[in-house]
């Protein structure tokens, strides 16, 4: 066997960054294995986490993975910024730079933003609708492990074989074997496919969960806004992700089996890839932004002690955004030469998105009006979101104008714009959501003083990093260029941006410090509804940390914000007696399935057909096992539920 193909170029050439990465991966792996063995935690890990079907634990695993990926992607971003600090810098080579910006985009969107959002959905949605788990708990575990192993497969590309280097968009013909002969883009086609299948299943799972498992009395128009945003997001997922699945499959055929869908020769169409990619890619942007809108709606309403202003128009605006999200994909390549009529159509549809988004901004502002605004850490992120996102939004309207886009396209102006919507939009939201809902899982709040310090560091550094890029773009600096000459005059603004990015990294490190510190020192909460009794939705109606069955008795809902009004009118939402509770049983198959997919993907990447076929058969065997398996879960007896309830102090029911 020829082992040479597994060794990345960086190792062969002795690139210190790559060698460092390899050594750190090996060391961390050894440390994890040794630690688990030393503390005898293998059994615990397997029983409590790897085999779990509990939506809360799966949510936590999503969030931990996303945080790790945030640092991987953040380190990539920092390296890109360091390379661009000064003209003709020699920190990275062109090839290495290309691999890193490709990784930065893919990781941040697919392996950070999406799993973070899905993690929060997992933790919160069943609680918010008064359910005991998602509709298909086992499928939920499959979703997670497919995402996890897809992400791992992508992550080993840097040290085994070579990383994708054609951008997160992987445009053809650049990404074809003709111009990218290495295995890098095979990783792209296969790893994204595996993770994408997981996401598609999540979409189905949460649509069914929200449609079928709401508490009695919770009609659609009584659902909390985050639940609404999740429902709409999952509908987008179900319509958009099959496009990615097909596009990636065609890419795989092109790269591995010599088909010619997107190649230069024999009538392949490179533009077809661009179209398919963005038919998925633009809705994908809304998949990560709509749940963020939902998170902000919950937090702003809670901490201004007021119900959400214009609930109906909030729901309607999200529905309209989701429709429009499928009608704007061409704005990613106005300059492809499709002519004025097509460009005008897509300009108008794109600008129209500003209307429902504007409605949302004003509704949030009017939720705050006449409120009693408390500046907690999650609220600070939510408030900072409004002005920063508005700036991102209006530059989006500018970019939507096809004619003007001929001057913005592919420049730093665009880079500044999408960071101005995605960071305050998605990243601030998931961090705010994490702070807000953290007590549900952990039983304590994250330290507020540290949280606020981290917030200010992040918010200020963010603007220092990305505001200069608008001007660099208008000065003709293109994205993805690994260096520039001194004559261009790009130097000073780039230096400022790099300083900001260091600040951003410090800010995110502070968030992690905040979490670790709070685990050891934060005071434990004794009651649910921890935010000074300001909770409005059902997740605050149960104990903290939330018991495995979520609610001892299923709550009954008679209006929007039912929990808030029940507290005010001193009523209880829990009318029935405690009964035995049906729960799904843990199972190791999802984890094993994910692991087999990982090996299948690895063999496919390196065209090792026999091994790939064996792994593929392994997948089929597991699917067959599941088909013929009978597992109706188990019941938690009444006594045990009562005992657990008493351990919480037991008077909420």
């Amino acid at each position, binding site marked *: 066997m020829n082992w040479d193909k597994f060794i990345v170029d960086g190792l062969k050439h002795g690139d210190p960054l790559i060698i460092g990465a390899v050594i750190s991966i090996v060391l961390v792996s050894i440390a994890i294995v040794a630690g688990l063995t030393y503390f005898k935690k293998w059994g615990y890990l397997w029983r409590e986490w790897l085999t779990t079907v509990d939506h809360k634990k799966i949510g936590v695993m999503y969030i931990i993975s996303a945080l790790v990926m945030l640092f991987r992607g953040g380190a990539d971003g920092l390296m890109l910024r360091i390379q661009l600090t000064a003209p003709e810098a020699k920190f990275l080579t062109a*090839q290495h730079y*290309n691999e890193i910006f490709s990784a930065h985009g893919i990781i941040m969107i697919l392996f950070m933003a999406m799993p973070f959002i899905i993690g929060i959905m997992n933790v919160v949605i069943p609680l918010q609708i008064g359910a005991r788990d998602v509709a298909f708990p086992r499928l939920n575990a499959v979703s997670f492990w497919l995402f996890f192993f897809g992400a791992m497969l992508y992550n080993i590309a840097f040290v085994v074989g070579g990383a994708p280097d054609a*951008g997160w968009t992987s*445009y053809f*013909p*650049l990404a074809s074997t*003709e*111009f990218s*002969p290495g295995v890098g883009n095979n990783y792209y086609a296969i790893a994204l496919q595996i993770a994408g299948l997981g996401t598609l299943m999540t979409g189905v799972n949460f649509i069914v969960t929200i449609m079928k498992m709401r508490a009695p009395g919770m009609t659609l128009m009584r659902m909390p806004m985050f639940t609404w945003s999740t429902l709409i997001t999952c509908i987008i997922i179900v319509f958009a992700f099959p496009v990615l699945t097909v596009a990636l499959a065609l890419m795989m055929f092109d790269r591995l089996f010599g088909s010619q869908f997107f190649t*230069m020769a024999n*009538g392949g*169409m490179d533009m077809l890839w*661009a179209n398919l990619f963005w038919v998925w890619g633009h809705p994908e942007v809304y998949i990560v932004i709509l749940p963020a809108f939902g998170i902000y709606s919950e937090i702003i309403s809670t901490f201004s*002690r007021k*119900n959400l202003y214009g*609930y*109906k*128009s909030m729901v309607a605006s999200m529905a309209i955004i989701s429709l429009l999200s499928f009608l704007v994909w061409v704005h990613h390549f106005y*300059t*492809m*030469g499709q*002519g004025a009529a097509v*460009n*005008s159509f897509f*300009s*108008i549809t794109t*600008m129209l998105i*500003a*209307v429902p988004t504007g*409605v949302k901004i004003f*509704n949030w*502002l*009017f939720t705050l009006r*006449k409120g*009693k*605004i408390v500046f907690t850490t999650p609220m600070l992120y939510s408030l900072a979101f*409004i*002005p920063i996102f*508005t*700036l991102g939004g209006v*530059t989006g*309207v500018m970019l939507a*104008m096809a*004619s*003007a886009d*001929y001057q913005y*396209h*592919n420049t730093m102006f665009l880079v500044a714009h999408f960071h101005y919507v995605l960071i305050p939009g998605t990243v601030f939201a998931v961090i705010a959501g994490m702070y807000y809902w953290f007590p549900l899982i952990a039983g304590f709040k994250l330290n507020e003083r540290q949280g606020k310090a981290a917030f*200010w560091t992040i*918010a200020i550094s963010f*603007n220092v990093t990305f*505001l200069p890029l608008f*001007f660099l773009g*208008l*000065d*003709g600096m293109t994205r*993805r260029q690994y*260096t520039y000459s001194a004559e*261009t*005059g790009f130097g000073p603004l780039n230096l400022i941006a790099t300083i900001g990015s260091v600040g951003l990294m410090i800010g995110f490190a502070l968030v992690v410090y905040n979490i670790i510190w709070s685990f050891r020192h934060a005071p434990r909460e004794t009651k649910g509804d921890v935010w000074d009794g300001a909770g409005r939705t059902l997740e605050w109606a149960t104990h903290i940390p939330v018991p495995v069955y979520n609610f001892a008795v299923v709550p009954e809902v008679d209006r929007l914000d039912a929990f808030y009004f029940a507290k005010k009118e001193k009523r209880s939402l829990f009318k029935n007696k405690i009964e035995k509770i049906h729960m799904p049983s843990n199972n190791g198959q999802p984890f094993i399935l994910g692991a087999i997919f990982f090996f299948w993907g690895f063999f496919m990447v390196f065209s090792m057909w026999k091994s790939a076929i064996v792994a593929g058969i392994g997948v089929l065997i597991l699917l067959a096992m599941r088909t013929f398996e009978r597992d109706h879960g188990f019941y938690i007896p009444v006594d045990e539920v009562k005992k657990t309830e008493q351990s919480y102090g037991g008077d909420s029911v």
Partner: protein
Amino acid sequence: MKKKGSLLVILTLLTLLLSGCTDELIVLNPKGPAAEMLSETIIFSVLMMAGVLVVVFTLFTIILVKYRASNSSPDYEPPHDEGSLKLEITWTLIPIIIVTILSVVTVKTTVAVEKPPAGYENQKPMIIYASSSNYKWHFSYPEQGIETVNYLNIPTGQNIEFRLYSYGPITSFWIPQLGGQKYAMSDMVTKLNLVADTPGSMMGKNSNFSGRGFAKMEFEVLAMSPGEFDEWVNDVKKTAPPLTEERFDELLKIEFPGRESYTSTHLEFRPAPEDHSSHFKKPGQKDEEQPSNNDNHEGHGEENNQETEVEDHSNH
């Protein structure tokens, strides 16, 4: 509060942008009518959007200052507020009006960028084929019968119809001070009309990521009076060699050849893929295009062996 600070920073930067420093930013410092129209469009949209920002930021600041908990009495209980149909319709209608105004401007200018710039509609355009192959640009002047590599000389006051295509990954042909950019692709020709008003040197580049050498894919655009242009053409014709098929194939493989000039164009033996219609050609028709793509294909196979040797040219 920090928000007021950032508001100030943004407004100051916007004012700066719109007053003094437009000359500093090349997109807003046009040297031709197409770029001028786009620059005006951009500034118009910035002003419209600045209006939106001012409204949102002002409301935001007032609300945060006025309704903070520390500013209200401890027993103040915020009212239940379902929303107001009137207000919600207002902030739906106003954005619709703004978007409508911008749409009119957009459609007008979007139609205009696809045509010769205003004032040059009736002038016979001069045609230049601009094609990219790994990290360089070929400029073919079929009317003058010359071809250059990595530099572009053009006469002022003359509408030039650029016909763009690529011998590899998608690239984007962009001369910011003359006008917008457009993609160059391997299987069709796209067109872009640009005019330079004043003589002078400008930066042109590929703006679409196309691989390892992408950052170096810049070329100088020199606008000169028609007289000087003719002189230059004659000069090239006297001094430069013809472009043979062998030389062109060689050239396709070189990554950074520096500047070159030839007294014939590659269009004679390697015609451009022309427009969309080539996708729909009948079998057997215009067959000569197909082999040219295949040649190129083979060319790239050898590319890797040459890398180290070729890299040195980048410092020309």
